């Protein structure tokens, strides 16, 4: 979180700089089967964010020391393309992308039925092509859809979404300016059917009441995004949206 609350992010009428209300999401689109080389894939646009995810496997896990006798391992990579931000990013891993890859893998392990594929590996490649705050949520949400597209058995879907605080007001789905000048950011990963939480991070400053409201916004948004995930899958496999 950058500056603390001194930048005007909410207008007098309660609307945010881009015209959204406090509990409103940016526009989202989800498409499956977009990368022909992959076994399963997903393209998600979330506001100005663009993420494309490829899933390969299950396949034999190499090197052997990463194999687990009772389950598959998820090999997840979150990567930002060099041209995805206003300043070019040097290609290759950095501390931030490593951490996000790790927590994403752990979140996805909670939904994938890994025990069905002992000694194997499932590769999940998340590429961020355009970044405008909220890329980890976008990556996780798209990865869950790509896994489903690859036919990997899963207990539930996973939706990741963030709420935060700007100008002392709790809001849903922070954009770039709100993220830079806001006071808190609370990204979570929610299993929409059971409402369990598989991923959780937070930075900034929230009171217990603000936290509760932020979680309420996240839960409501997760249900909305879940519908988009299901519709995207249905439009490929079930001849169209219900």
């Amino acid at each position: 979180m950058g500056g603390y609350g001194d930048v005007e992010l909410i207008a007098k009428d309660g609307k945010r700089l881009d015209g959204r209300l406090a509990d409103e999401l940016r526009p989202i689109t989800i498409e499956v089967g977009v990368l022909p080389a992959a076994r399963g894939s997903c393209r998600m646009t979330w506001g100005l964010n663009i993420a494309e995810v490829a899933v390969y496997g299950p396949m034999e896990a190499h090197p052997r020391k990463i194999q687990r006798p009772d389950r598959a391992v998820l090999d997840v990579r979150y990567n930002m393309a060099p041209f995805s931000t206003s300043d070019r990013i040097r290609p290759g891993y950095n501390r931030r992308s490593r951490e996000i890859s790790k927590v994403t893998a752990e979140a996805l392990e909670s939904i994938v039925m890994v025990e069905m594929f002992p000694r194997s590996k499932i590769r999940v490649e998340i590429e961020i092509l355009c970044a405008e705050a909220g890329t980890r949520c976008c990556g996780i949400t798209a990865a869950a859809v790509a896994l489903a597209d690859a036919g990997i058995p899963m207990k539930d879907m996973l939706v990741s979404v963030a709420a935060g605080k700007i100008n002392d007001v709790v809001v849903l789905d922070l954009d770039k300016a709100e993220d830079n000048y806001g006071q808190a950011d609370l990204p979570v990963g929610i299993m929409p059917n059971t409402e369990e939480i598989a991923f959780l991070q937070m930075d900034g400053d929230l009171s217990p009441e603000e936290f509760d409201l932020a979680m309420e916004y996240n839960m409501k948004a997760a249900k909305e995004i879940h519908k988009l995930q299901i519709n995207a899958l249905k439009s490929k496999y079930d001849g169209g949206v219900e």
Partner: protein
Amino acid sequence: MVEIVPRLLKDQLLKLAEKNDRIDGREQYQRRNVDLEVNVLTNAEGSAKVVWGGTIVYAGVKFEIRTPWPDRPTEGSLMCGAELRPVANLKYEPGPPSAESIELGRVVDRGIRESGCINMEELCIVPGEKVWGVMLDIHVMSDKGNIFDACALAGIAALKTAIVPAERFDVGDDHQLPVSKLPIMASYRKVGNRFVYDPCEEEELGGDERVHITLGDDGHVHSLQKGLKGTFSTSDFAEIFANANEQANELREMVEEKVN
């Protein structure tokens, strides 16, 4: 991939070649469907997406201000990188760039650089102090064969649409990056006993040597690369060189139509 599969595939490709046929039913010099979209990435100063059959490539241009090389105080620079990340195909592993990845980046770079499409003097801001560094990054998202041509096409199209962000760096007004030429690459693969244009994934797996030709607007050649084991005669080369000209002209028209 186990040795045996390419071996069987090789036999099949050879039989098809003898009947003047290809594994996906195309003619010897027929291209797959190519779709080009420009300005697809808001955070890049210039961008393009190429869908070439099942191969998908993005290219994005970024700028930086740097001090010029001491021996070329009035010249900016172009850096071109192509990455073969594991997202693109099962066969690509994570880790430092492979030799194939580096070859791809360098061959694409040479074609664009040597065509002289960017006059480096025009990238000078203050001689000896400040010049523009143009950074072209090419990102392969799906490799279903012939990534070289797709990368080169996305690269030049992204440069063609690039806006120099001078206002953001406080050095004048934003302006179009001057790109005066349109170098186009055409790639051929020895499959069976003959060269085919625009090899698909199976032809790359079961084929032999490859040849990449980059041609400028005037039909002049700007970069050549022969890759992998295998040899060919000068008459073989003359034939594909003549064909490369036709392919390049068609693709160049497509770029011109999309960027203007």
